[in-house]
């Protein structure tokens, strides 16, 4: 009951936030625009149109044009979902730790690890509901328009939600340490950008300084933090290869970033719970 209370409260808070309401309205607008605007030339099923204008004419060999469209939509969606998500949940821990609020929550017969865990679950569920709703809407529009019911696109909403869950653990840890919504939001964005840099470190960050210790530090950061960028890239691969998102990357799906991220998120959660337990408020 207590855990359910925290989960339900946080879920409600997540879906009522202005940021996520904006995202929800934007999502609905995109679904509506797709419903009204997307189509294909009757004589040529490989030629998609948007309000009558041809799009996606240069389809790579062996790629289905609808699958390409879905992969494109998935990669764009996951980017914006993360952006809105960071804005939406960055304040979740700092706000309950404010003076006058912390006393109310911490004086209740619930342990701090439960409060942290079920608040993270609630925040993730709130964002996941938005993600699944939007992706299901796009999936239904594409299915109705082209008769292609691409279940992997729908399932990718779970991969994006999972990736976001790992990010939430990190944002909550930052929230416990910083206790400031603005700083946590900045941290979230910086981490998001940094995770792209870490994923492609062999072609970027490693070249900045030819030093073994520096390279080891980057490797450690990559494995000790959720591999956000790698998870999102793989979600796009899962839908229909990432030829549009990143043609230089291998096109095969790799599940390991999800496994490593689960391990790092678990470690970060345990450290956060220990820190939370030790702190006075």
């Amino acid at each position: 009951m207590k855990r359910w209370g925290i989960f339900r409260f946080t879920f409600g808070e997540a879906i009522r936030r202005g940021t996520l309401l904006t995202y929800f309205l934007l999502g609905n607008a995109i679904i509506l625009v797709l419903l009204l605007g997307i189509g294909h030339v009757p004589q040529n099923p490989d030629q998609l149109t948007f309000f009558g204008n041809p799009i996606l004419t240069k389809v790579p060999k062996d790629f289905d044009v609808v699958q390409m469209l879905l992969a494109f939509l998935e990669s764009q969606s996951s980017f914006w979902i993360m952006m809105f998500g960071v804005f939406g949940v960055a304040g979740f821990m700092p706000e309950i730790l404010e003076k006058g609020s912390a006393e109310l929550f911490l004086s209740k017969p619930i342990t701090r690890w439960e409060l942290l865990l079920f608040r993270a679950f609630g925040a993730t569920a709130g964002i996941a509901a938005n993600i699944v709703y939007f992706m299901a809407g796009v999936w239904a529009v594409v299915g109705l328009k082209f008769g292609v019911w691409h279940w992997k696109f729908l399932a990718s909403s779970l991969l994006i939600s999972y990736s976001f869950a790992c990010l939430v653990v990190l944002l909550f840890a930052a929230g416990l340490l910083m206790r400031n919504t603005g700083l946590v939001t900045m941290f979230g964005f910086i981490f998001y950008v940094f995770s792209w840099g870490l994923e492609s470190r062999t072609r970027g960050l490693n070249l900045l300084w030819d030093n073994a210790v520096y390279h080891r530090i980057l490797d450690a950061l990559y494995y000790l933090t959720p591999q956000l960028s790698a998870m999102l890239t793989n979600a796009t691969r899962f839908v229909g290869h990432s030829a549009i998102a990143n043609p230089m990357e291998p096109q095969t799906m790799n599940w390991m970033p999800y496994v490593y991220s689960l391990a790092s998120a678990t470690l970060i959660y345990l450290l956060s719970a220990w820190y939370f337990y030790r702190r006075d408020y």
Partner: protein
Amino acid sequence: MHPIEIEGVSKTYVSGFWRRARLEALVDISFQVEAGTIFSLLGPNGAGKTTLVKILLSVVRPSAGAARINGVPCSSVDARAKSGYLPENHRYPNFLNGLETLIFFGRLNGLPASMLRDRANQLLGLVGLDEWKKMKIRKYSKGMLQRLGLAQALLNEPNVLFLDEPTDGVDPVGRKEIRDLLVNLKSQGKTIFLNSHLLSEVERISDRVAILNKGRIIRTGSIPDLTAGALIYEIDLEGGISAELMDRIRRTVETAMISNKTLTVGLHARSELDSVVDLLRTNGFSIGGIREQKLSLEESFMQLIGKQP
């Protein structure tokens, strides 16, 4: 077993980059609170009152010592299951309305779903918020929030209630209602631990008081104990008193003065009052009445705090 037991509790806050700055917020605090009483903790700002309550509710960890609520160590979740808390300057999630707030905190208290709504409605009625229960709490006034806070603290039918400035921001009528409610809760056997700056209110309803200053308990006792310490008596006489008799009385007591047929004497000990009465009676005075001149709690509090280095 007492509902609240505190043994040698100390709290030192450490701060700074090298963690060398130390602030002793509480030093070796020990006392118990009897069941079914109202106990008030008084002290100037920064005395450590809120820190002590936070330790009892496990919001802050003590540096030394131990405290128990209903016989259970205060760090245990079980200790909080039957205690209620109204913090000072409490902040509620402002996207909820009054009813939703109580339902949410009821869930956190582990109340069964079947009774949540009824209990929340009953308490909203008790604190006079029935009319505004569907209004978002961001629109509530300070007094309304205070009433909501009190309802929140009572959700789990606690047998120990911690209230930090419960009448802060409440109008005089509301204050009386809250005082009456606390007295009623006491009559139901609940133990109430009150932190308040409003000494006149504390004086009206408290059974025992502890005065805390600079992290140390400087006095505990009942209200009569704290306010009767001065040993000053007023004696109504039915005639004038001679200068010679006044001299004899002054030699018997610490201070003596006469004004409008009322003799005011300050005593070293209670037994001196008998000597003064004997002197007056043997000199043929008829005594109309004797009153003990009491200090108010505020005067007593100011004297005690003023004596502290």
